[in-house]
């Protein structure tokens, strides 16, 4: 019999509805776990225990009064600190926003609240989502629950770690170039980056707006489908939101891969891919074949340019998106504002941003400058189109594309942080789907030396159902889901 904090969202909701337990008990159990483990993990920047327990009481009252409750009633949800929560500190793990309390809720938060989900805290991340290891956080790195000397991946490292340790039942991450899938892979949880435009970005603090999406990070595939059903859907406040009918993604979960055509691009197994990772992913593909799928090796040659393209576009957009942080209206401000506004702005930005953020702003500014714009930014946009065309071609033949989420298992904290290029290289298998705006899921598919490995399943635009069903079938026929880090 699992303890309350170990339950999945589906189980939690069921037990609360059946009056076996109260929402309050469930939330309390999660907070007990948080208090026990946070010193070792550092998954959270902010906790809102009192508010969460009050909300749980409210839901319990509704249930005892026989009133209807929402789809996520009583579930403890952690939110990446890049997503605005009204009245709750939202820092982006940056000194710049260490005192920023948003005056409004992001659209996804409104949707969660409407379904009676309970926000329990804000999770640690790479500063402004710039990183793949959660080491650039102003509040210190989050640690990998499977080996606390290692990184949890990033940038949504806090969200992945808190799911792996049962410090939350569901979590929201954001994914600009792999920031949901990378930590999901490194912490052995499920993480989905939805199709660009499927989930509203309203209230997501922008890093690179043409690439990023908010998505679910969960204990299993069912929870992922459930959570996606709540947060997805058209939002008139986001001009890039896709106008599609709301959908219950849990309905597409069948333990069956019959007729599923899998493409295996060789570019996902490029130079530097760890042998154990490669082997486990192939095992996973064969597992799906046992359930009726077929595979074929293929090639998407333009993926070779994904990393360069991604970093130019992301940094260019970031240099503009982060211009607003000048300390005038909100955010970090140096003590003495002597001097003209330009001097004060410079001081605020120099001290308020960390080194990686400053690096990307400077590189992005350079890439957009007169004389370089055509050479870098415009060229990157053109290559982006070519990459998208490669995927379009591939999906004429295949239902999904499969490869490793990360080329190698989690590395040591401090191992790559002094070498930005090595760190950027770790995104090699994830950035292309952001460039093409496609849905992709990372699902646990094994271990090497006790460190998790994740499989990435990519599908055509708006075919989240395909990624979810393939991941679900795999999960149902393996026992990786039941493996939990010893720290629990």
């Amino acid at each position, binding site marked *: 019999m699992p303890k309350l904090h170990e339950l999945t969202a589906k189980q939690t909701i069921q037990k609360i509805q059946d009056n076996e337990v109260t929402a309050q008990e469930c939330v309390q159990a999660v907070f007990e776990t948080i208090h026990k483990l946070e010193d070792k993990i550092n998954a959270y920047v902010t906790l809102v225990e009192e508010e969460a327990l009050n909300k749980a009481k409210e839901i319990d009252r509704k249930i005892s009064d026989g009133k209807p409750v929402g789809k996520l009633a009583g579930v403890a949800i952690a939110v990446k600190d890049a*997503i*605005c929560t009204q009245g709750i500190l*939202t820092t*982006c793990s940056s000194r710049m*926003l260490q005192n*920023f309390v*948003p*005056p*409004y809720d*992001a659209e996804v938060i409104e949707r969660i609240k409407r379904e009676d989900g309970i926000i329990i805290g804000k999770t640690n991340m790479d500063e402004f989502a710039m990183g793949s290891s959660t080491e650039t956080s102003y509040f210190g790195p989050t640690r990998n629950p499977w080996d606390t000397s290692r990184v949890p991946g990033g940038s949504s490292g806090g969200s992945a770690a808190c799911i792996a340790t049962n410090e939350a039942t569901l979590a929201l991450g954001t994914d600009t170039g792999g920031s949901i899938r990378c930590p999901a892979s490194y912490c052995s949880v499920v993480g989905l980056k939805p199709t660009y435009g499927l989930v509203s*970005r*309203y*209230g*997501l*603090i*922008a890093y*690179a*707006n*043409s690439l990023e999406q908010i998505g679910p990070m969960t204990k299993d595939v069912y929870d992922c489908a459930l959570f996606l059903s709540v947060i997805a859907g058209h939002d*008139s*406040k*986001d*001009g*890039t939101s896709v106008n599609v009918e709301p959908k219950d993604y849990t309905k597409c979960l069948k333990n069956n891969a019959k007729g599923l055509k899998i493409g295996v691009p060789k570019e996902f197994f490029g130079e530097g891919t760890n042998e154990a990772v490669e082997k486990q992913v192939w095992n996973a593909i064969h597992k799906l074949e046992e359930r009726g799928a077929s595979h074929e090796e293929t090639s998407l040659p333009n993926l070779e340019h994904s990393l360069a393209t991604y970093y130019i576009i992301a940094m*260019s*957009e970031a*240099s*503009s998106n982060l*211009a*607003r942080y*000048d300390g*005038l*209206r*909100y955010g970090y401000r140096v003590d003495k504002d002597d001097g003209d*506004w*330009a001097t004060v*702005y410079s001081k605020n930005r120099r001290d308020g941003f960390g080194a990686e953020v400053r690096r990307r702003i400077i590189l992005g*500014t350079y890439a*957009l*400058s*007169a004389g370089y*714009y*055509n050479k870098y*930014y*415009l060229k990157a*946009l*053109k290559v*982006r*189109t070519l990459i998208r065309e490669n995927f379009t071609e591939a999906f004429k033949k295949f239902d999904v594309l499969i490869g490793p989420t990360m080329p190698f298992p989690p590395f040591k904290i401090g191992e790559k942080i002094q070498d930005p290029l090595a760190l950027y290289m770790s995104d090699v298998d994830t950035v292309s789907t952001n460039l093409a*705006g496609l849905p992709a899921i990372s699902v646990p598919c094994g271990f090497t030396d006790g460190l998790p490995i994740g499989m990435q399943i990519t599908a055509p635009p708006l075919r989240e159902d395909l990624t979810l069903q393939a991941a679900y079938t795999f999960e149902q026929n393996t026992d990786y889901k039941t493996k939990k880090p010893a720290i629990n």
Partner: protein
Amino acid sequence: MVNAKHLNSTDKNNVTEMSTKNQNEVRIGLEVHVQLTSLKTKLFCGCSSDYKGKDPNSLVCPVCLGIPGALPVLNANSVDYAVMVALALNSKVSECMFFFRKNYYYPDMPKNFQISQYDQAGGVPLAVGGFLVIDVGTKRKKVRIGRVHLEEDPGRLVHQGAIDTSPYTLVDYNRSGIALLEIVTEPDLDSPKEARIFLQKLRSILEHLGIFAGRLEGSIRCDANISLTGGTRVEVKNISSFKEVERALSFEIMRQKNLVKKGLSVKHETRHWDESRRVTISLRMKEKEHDYRYFPEPDLVPITITEDFVENVKEKMPELPEARISRFVDAYGLPQYDAEVLVSDKALADFFECTVKLYDKPKEVSNWMMGDLLRNLNENNLVLTDCKITPEHLVEMIKLIEEGVISGKIGKRVLPEMVLTGKQPSLIIKEKGLVKISSRDALEGIVEQVFSEHPSCVEDALADENAVHFLVGQLMRATKGKADPQLANQLIHEKLESLKK
């Protein structure tokens, strides 16, 4: 998603034909910013655009304050309005339009970038090309339009006194995000006067399109590029009203000519028009063009403007000034000049048509409006929409004259009261006792009085018909103009006849 194909730079901009005329020739190009206040809301959020007189920073939301995470969403009506203007200016409406970010730091910009359609690299704005024909004296002149595009207004900086001496700057973001239409002319204007005429015509068009309330201060602003032939171009910013345009341009031309006379060079720079001191002051040197790092706005998708859409807008287009002038000439029989003056200001033209609906003598109405009404407005530095006079009241006054209740002369005294107080003319007449004296009994005594006070004039009048006018004038004066002029004339003649006997 932006298709890179559309982003190829064409380098068509910055082609300025420089003629080799003499040094004193002036070339002026205008960048006119029109606030689309008729949109009711701002360009990218639902905040009210009616910000005049509101408490500072009271009409703001996460979007127009640039709060992290907030996203812009285009107000669809802004495209209708902008296309309407483009059509009225004979511009070519683009099939697809993009928004770009113009990146620069300034305290009036909450995001430290402005969402605009100008990208300096040949990106596609809402409309390109076009022209507007203006009448300068007797000649007609075609002023070429470079481009028409949409962008967001920054916030407003408030200073204590002049910008360069104020000890602090306050920022009001109520204006931040208001829809602006930028209309850029080629440097085709030769004088401050032409610039004023151009702007007046443009304003009339915009008012007729119903897209902005031009009377609101700051709702139409312009920057001007001014150069002497062969000389360096200077940009003058912060010209906030029509009256200021002529002043600012005249000052700047004089300044440049003086420099040339002294053998000094005109620097390539941006200058600020200081309205209170009536001088332009240097703000920043333009030795190097600012690098705005334009790139496509990722939060807004490109907008396709179909032919059907344009046709639809065309059908909805209200009557434009040129057509209205012709109609005034044809339907009301007004002289061309009258029609032009009335239509130059939509409020005047509307007032005229309302009045004519109530009183079917167009020329009579036009005469009162062109003469006394306009003179009164000008003398009091008023515009028609500021004052309370109504078409009903003007009709009543004209009818009072027609019915002989007051004289035309009294009418000229009643009208200013109507303009200033908005009172009904009959009430003014009653209050001031201005009803015409048409009874023989009331006037005969006064005639006696005039004759006894001016005996020598009576002598003259007996001999010379022309001197009679003086006596009539005296009678009118003694009755403060209220005497029925015909009767006054008649009584004076009768009295003279009786003396002759």
